[in-house]
């Protein structure tokens, strides 16, 4: 029997690693992967809650989150490919064309 707190702590740690990845990495693909890690951490917390509450709603939300993540990855990777085609780099520091 695992206390729910352990799952929450694990979820918070994974989410924080994702946030750190978004903040310190320069590679757009790694930033994208960190976002996926954050979504996953939130999913883990939701499934743990649904298990404690003996309700299916948490699992259904996770199902929708997975569907939205798939859509997001398809569009996001297409954008990254386009950026790479025009700039020859996926370093986010290079993406400053709008800066005056």
């Amino acid at each position, binding site marked *: *029997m695992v206390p729910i707190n352990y799952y929450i*702590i694990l979820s918070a740690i*994974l*989410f924080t*690693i994702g946030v750190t990845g978004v903040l310190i990495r320069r590679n757009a693909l790694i930033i994208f992967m960190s976002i996926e*890690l954050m979504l996953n951490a939130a999913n883990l917390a939701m*499934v743990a809650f649904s298990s404690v509450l003996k309700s299916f709603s948490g699992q259904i939300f996770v*199902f929708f989150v997975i569907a939205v*993540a798939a859509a997001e990855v398809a569009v996001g990777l297409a954008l990254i490919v386009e950026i790479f085609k025009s700039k020859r780099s996926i370093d986010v520091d290079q993406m400053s064309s709008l800066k005056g």
Partner: protein
Amino acid sequence: MTLDLILFLFLSLIAIASAFGMLLSRNAVYSALFLVLNFVTVAVFYLLLGAPFIAMAQVTVYAGAIMVLFLFVIMLLGADELPKAQVLPWQKPLAIALAVILAVEATFLLVTKARPAGDVLQPETVINSMDNLREMGMSLFSTYLLPFEVTSILLLVAMVGAIVLTKKEKGAQK
């Protein structure tokens, strides 16, 4: 220490270590593979929590489809390693300090305020995976019918968007 708890600690060690591996490896291909390991570990957590359908969806959609897409793009662009160029030298320590504060704060608030009382499912109360599937299907097509349909439109829009973004325009220069 019960067997359940030992299993949980072992798996969470793998999950955190693979997340750090994703964060720290210089090569983007290694990062993607570490993330696949993390997703599979989280799928095992879902099985432990009595959500077999979500676990299988996690393995097929995340570890299968999404990460294969990532690996395709990494190898297509050939941009797996970036030169080290630190623009703001104070950014990394500040980010790590703020992230630690965020972790402590989120853990504290979730543990003390916003949690349902009780422990997670005991392993003795086995969840029948067909029952889980049936229950989820029933509520997806009754209570959550509208979000389900909206999700299908979202997936269609994403598909059209990805095709339009990557296809060459007619009449554009080569």
